[in-house]
């Protein structure tokens, strides 16, 4: 093997590692972005539902529409955390390494959300606003519970 060939091979290896790394980072960064967009949308849905209940007479049609979003989110939630979308993604994210180092605990936290969202959605379809209210409290705790464990604190 000539030295120039070895050098070329070495460069190819380095180059593909760099490109591969960049691509992985790119997809990781994209995953972070998708996740943040989805979470914000959930927050906005929560705001609509919260406003409805705070008004004292929630509109069943609006509640049904938003509860659908909660339920749909439960199904995509596990896919929002692909490997490589943590801090290593190279963009700002508060997702903690525990998401990937404690998969069973994280899955349980996601499951808790899915259960509450399912309950809220079922009650909303039946038009039982009191039951939706109860399920929302579970949902609120599921959100906070997961964020407490698997997301970095916002203020130091």
């Amino acid at each position: 093997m000539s030295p120039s060939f070895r050098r070329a091979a070495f460069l190819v290896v380095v180059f593909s590692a760099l490109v591969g790394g960049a691509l992985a980072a790119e997809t990781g960064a994209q995953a972070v972005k998708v996740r943040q967009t989805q979470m914000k949308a959930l927050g906005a849905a929560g705001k609509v539902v919260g406003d409805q209940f705070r008004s004292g007479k929630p509109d069943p049609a609006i509640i049904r529409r938003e509860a659908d979003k909660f339920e749909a989110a439960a199904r995509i939630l596990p896919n929002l955390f692909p490997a490589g979308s943590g801090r290593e993604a190279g963009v700002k994210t508060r997702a903690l390494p525990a998401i990937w180092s404690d998969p069973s605990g994280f899955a349980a936290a996601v499951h808790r959300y899915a259960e509450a969202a399912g309950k809220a959605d079922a009650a909303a379809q039946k038009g039982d606003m009191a039951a939706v209210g109860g399920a929302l409290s579970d949902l609120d705790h599921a959100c906070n519970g997961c964020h407490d464990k698997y997301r970095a604190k916002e203020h130091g």
Partner: protein
Amino acid sequence: MPPPLAAGERRLLWDKPTRLLHWLIVGLVAFSWWSATHEHLPWHRLSGYTILGLLLFRVIWGFVGARSARFGSFLRGPVAAFDYVRGRGAALVGHSPLGGWSIVAMLVVLFVQVGLGLFSVDEDGLQAGPLSRFLSPDPDVAYDRGRAIAHLHHLNFRLLLALIALHLAAVAFYAVRGRNLLGPMITGRAALPAGAAEVRPVPAWRALASALLAAALAVFVARGLRF
């Protein structure tokens, strides 16, 4: 004019409503902090609404309360504050010209804190202040604004902590110089300087009427400006 007092006589300085309000705010600010850090947001809101009522009461009391509680008695210009710092001020009953402005600063920061809380939105959007419904008709925009305000709520709390630290430092400063500010805020009584005019308590019905008005306003706000 009430008769002037002899030096060293322990007479009324802070009337009962002012003292009660002071200690309730101390307790509720501590409780608000605790309930926020432990995510008991329903309790946190209730605490905030109560503080709002107390602040409104304090403003009303600043006009109809006992003399030492009135803004007109303790808000003096910068010249008076400067003279006081240089030790050239007149004998005082109640807040010094500097202390008076620190009370206003405290009230303003507390009002801002409650005001921001009323518009704040929690991260999952489900829990939010009662006035957050006015942020925007677009839920995405409303959520973003409410979150931004929640951050300001957090920042302003640090400002509040700084003011509390300053307040305690001032109390300690006077204590070292032999003047007890804590006692009068508990018992209401203090040794007033010779020749000082007496602080007379005002009739209880004024406190009751002020409390009712403040409570009604606070409830109205807490219900999202709905009756």
